[in-house]
């Protein structure tokens, strides 16, 4: 139905983070991809929450793209506060922050790099450029973005 393009980290395994891989369950990835298709041609965005300190994504929380734009996304600020508070209450963190690119490849744009503010998160980008709203190949890649430096990591679907 769709495929994950899993690429080894280009910068090698000497990064700050011990875990240079995103391990994620298939149903969670399916949810992310379904969200991206649903919102195409606008960018979709959201998080996958998981218990703090585990690096394990557990539940997808689709977020509104307040910009409703094919080239930009921003979480709605009120919804973000509500969700972040809920995460705090449950001792969870945004393990994954995802968004879609609807006309370009699944690689961080300059804007993505400049605005990345969660050094502990896996930034997952899904490209619906090829498939649009229909079934077809979806490119899905994961990155760390820390202080302007991108490190691609492997996606291991469990």
């Amino acid at each position, binding site marked *: 139905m769709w495929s994950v393009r899993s690429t080894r980290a280009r910068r090698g395994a000497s990064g700050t983070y011990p875990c240079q891989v995103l391990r994620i369950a298939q149903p969670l990835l399916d949810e992310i991809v379904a969200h991206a298709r649903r919102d195409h041609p606008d960018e979709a965005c959201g998080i996958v929450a998981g218990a703090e300190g585990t690096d394990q994504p557990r539940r997808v929380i689709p977020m509104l793209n307040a910009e409703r734009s094919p080239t930009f*996304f921003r979480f709605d600020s009120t919804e973000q506060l509500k969700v*972040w508070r809920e995460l705090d209450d449950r001792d969870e963190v945004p393990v994954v*922050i995802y968004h879609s690119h609807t006309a370009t490849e699944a690689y961080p744009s300059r804007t993505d790099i400049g605005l990345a503010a969660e050094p502990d998160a896996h930034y997952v980008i899904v490209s619906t450029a090829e498939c649009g709203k229909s079934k077809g190949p979806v490119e899905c890649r994961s990155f760390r973005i820390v202080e302007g430096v991108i490190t691609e990591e492997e996606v291991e679907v469990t």
Partner: protein
Amino acid sequence: MAVEVRIPTILRTYTGGAKAVDGTGATLAEVIQDVESGHPGIKDRLIEGADLRRFINVYVNDEDVRFLDGLDTAVTDGDVVVVLPAVAGG
């Protein structure tokens, strides 16, 4: 007025790792100035020129200050100020 200011992970380098710091002032701008005096450098991460940085969200008692009076938003004793970097990109 004494308020609690909650600091996001990415700015905790300025607060010695603290998740929250105390600040005083009658407005959000004054509170930020007060926090700056104890944690130099943090103000520049929140404010650009005369305004909040575009991709920093600040809430007073759960209300985005962009829907209140921005940096002039009044605060009173016991209020909670939350700082969250916007999650955004292209």
